[in-house]
């Protein structure tokens, strides 16, 4: 449509220009002819000494002036005759500049008429020092041309505009199913493999929708296979781990030597750690799957209190002080998942705080997001390690606990499920871990 309009506008401009040129030629020839006639007449009467009388008669007997064509006779700087009172066209100042010239008179014309052209033909007679100037106002011609063009083209303009509107309406309605499909696809989560069903099931989109649904089915199967693989792998590892732990118990019962006992204890710790890694890997694999149902209003601080109770023995053993405000703040989330997040965060805080230290737990709501921050001393944590703490399997140098290096990764993954984040900050040997999620009620 734009190309068509451009071509049409170009054709219109060319037609206008061609017509204008065609109309100009006779006028220009007419001006030249009139100027020569007048000069010839002047030369003839001047030869018999009658030029002054000729001019006087011109002045007195010339018919009423018409604005369209102007006749003027100049001698030097003086105008001897003009067929019109206003609008003098002085002779050219440049020597030898006879002939046709045009001028655009813009100064006192309104803006819509500022393209008034006067075609001016100037002819000089050197013996008499006479300038004969004949000028034609092209404004009326321009107006006629424009009128012709407008009357020729306005129906086409109306038709084109109407066609444009109809086309726009048709395309808009025609593309509506595509817009609905686009909105449907845009609003999907990364693990949403539900088939697409549109109202009225537009025929033109059926092949696309069928292909997309088939793709979703294949993706879902692949995703499920990968998830099952992770789960099956974890299950397959758990059995042998249980056997190893049980056998270590039997060995511990059988051996009496202290060194052997120490070896058994050390092996048990490693097996426990491996078991922890397997559990955490399984958790991560499960968090990759979509959480279906189970959303409820959860009191975050209540969950924290419950989790702290589970760690009460370890807290007592390490002589830690817990400062936790008991204010209530509810979010809409999956309780089991939030419990996992806080278990990992509290586990880290409790295990990595120095003995006798304190842990500060602060929860805060900001608009539609809630954050829970865990602050504890971390004198042995290097600043360069802080940004890596949420990397999977990363454990700072010197870590000796049973952790798998996946706790923060799990908390981070859970925060991401609720469009949130986990922010880490180390300042003055105090580590702050802030878990933020967005309340789905809002």
């Amino acid at each position: 449509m734009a190309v068509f309009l451009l071509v049409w506008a170009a054709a219109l401009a060319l037609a206008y220009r061609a017509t204008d040129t065609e109309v100009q030629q006779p006028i220009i020839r007419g001006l030249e002819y009139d100027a020569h006639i007048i000069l010839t007449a002047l030369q003839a009467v001047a030869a018999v000494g009658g030029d002054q009388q000729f001019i006087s008669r011109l002045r007195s007997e010339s018919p009423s002036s018409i604005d369209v064509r102007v006749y003027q006779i100049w001698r030097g700087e003086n105008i001897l005759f003009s067929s019109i009172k206003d609008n003098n066209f002085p002779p050219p100042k440049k020597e030898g500049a006879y002939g046709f010239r045009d001028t655009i008179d813009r100064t006192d014309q309104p803006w819509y008429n500022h393209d008034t052209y006067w075609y001016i033909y100037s002819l000089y007679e050197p013996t008499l020092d006479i300038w004969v100037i004949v000028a034609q106002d092209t404004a009326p011609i321009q107006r006629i041309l424009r009128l012709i063009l407008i009357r020729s083209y306005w129906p086409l303009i109306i038709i084109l505009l109407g066609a444009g509107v109809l086309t726009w309406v048709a395309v808009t309605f025609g593309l509506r199913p595509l817009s609905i499909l686009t909105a449907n696809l845009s609003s999907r989560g990364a693990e949403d493999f539900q088939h697409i069903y549109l109202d009225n099931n537009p025929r033109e989109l059926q092949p696309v929708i069928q292909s997309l649904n088939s793709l979703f089915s294949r993706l879902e199967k692949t995703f499920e296979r990968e998830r099952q693989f992770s789960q099956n792998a974890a299950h397959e590892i758990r059995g042998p781990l249980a056997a190893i732990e049980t056998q270590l118990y039997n060995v511990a019962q059988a051996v009496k030597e202290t060194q052997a006992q120490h070896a058994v204890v050390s092996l048990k710790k490693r097996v426990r750690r491996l078991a922890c890694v397997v559990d955490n890997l399984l958790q991560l694999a499960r968090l990759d799957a979509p959480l279906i149902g189970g959303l409820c209003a959860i009191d975050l601080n209540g969950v924290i209190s419950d989790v702290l109770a589970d760690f009460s023995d370890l807290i007592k053993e390490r002589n830690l002080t817990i400062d936790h405000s008991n204010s209530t703040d509810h979010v809409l989330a999956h309780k089991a998942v939030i419990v996992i997040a806080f278990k990992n965060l509290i586990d880290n805080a409790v295990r990595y705080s120095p003995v006798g230290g304190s842990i500060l737990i602060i929860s805060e709501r900001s608009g539609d997001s809630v954050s829970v921050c865990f602050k504890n001393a971390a004198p042995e944590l290097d600043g360069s390690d802080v940004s890596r703490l949420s990397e999977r399997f990363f454990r700072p140098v010197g870590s000796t606990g049973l952790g798998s290096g996946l706790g923060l990764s799990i908390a981070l993954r859970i925060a991401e499920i609720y469009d949130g984040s986990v922010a880490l900050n180390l300042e003055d040997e105090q580590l702050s871990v802030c878990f933020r999620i967005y309340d789905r009620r809002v």
Partner: protein
Amino acid sequence: MRLLLAEDDLMLGESLKQALESEGYAVDWVKTGDDAIQAVFTGEFDIAIFDWRMPIIDGVTAIGRLRIRGDKMPILMLTARDELADKVNALDIGADDYIVKPFIIEELFARLRVLYRRRKGSASPTLRCGQLTLNPANKEVELDNEKIELSVREFTVLQRLIECQGRFCSKTSLTKALYSWDNIAASNTIEVYIARLRRALGADWIKTRRGVGYKINPL
């Protein structure tokens, strides 16, 4: 105590049998759910551990069938499945407890003691008979607040006698509590353990009735 272990994993089954026997259990080990059901029907077991994944019939299905037939033996489910839905399913089908692999063996022992205690109708973790106190958790025996050292099997026999308090406990039931199918007791083994207990506690603590059995007699 007589325990039925239903576990198809050879390595785990073997190590678990050994650990349970060291704890004083007489363990019979089967490797399929079908064998587990048949074993329970013999009526010889006090408690059972069932794995979930087993050939022929899985553990949960086996428990379901036993419960439908009215069997009330305590069964602890031992499995790598840790999802809530699995736990709820197993417990609703009829398992009495659920423990996830890998487990801490001491926790397994504690859960077995709880199940056994409840089966006997007792809420207390210790057994009392007059001035005699038995703690199954740490295998400690006290008489008039004085500790008495007993072997695992002696402890098991004494525990069984106290559980039979007020009535005679047959030699057969004592033998079954001590020995699994693949351990054949000598004909006078129980008499040997009874003699040892009499030496430790006092001769009058255990009464014998020929052809019937033995009875604890608190002084």
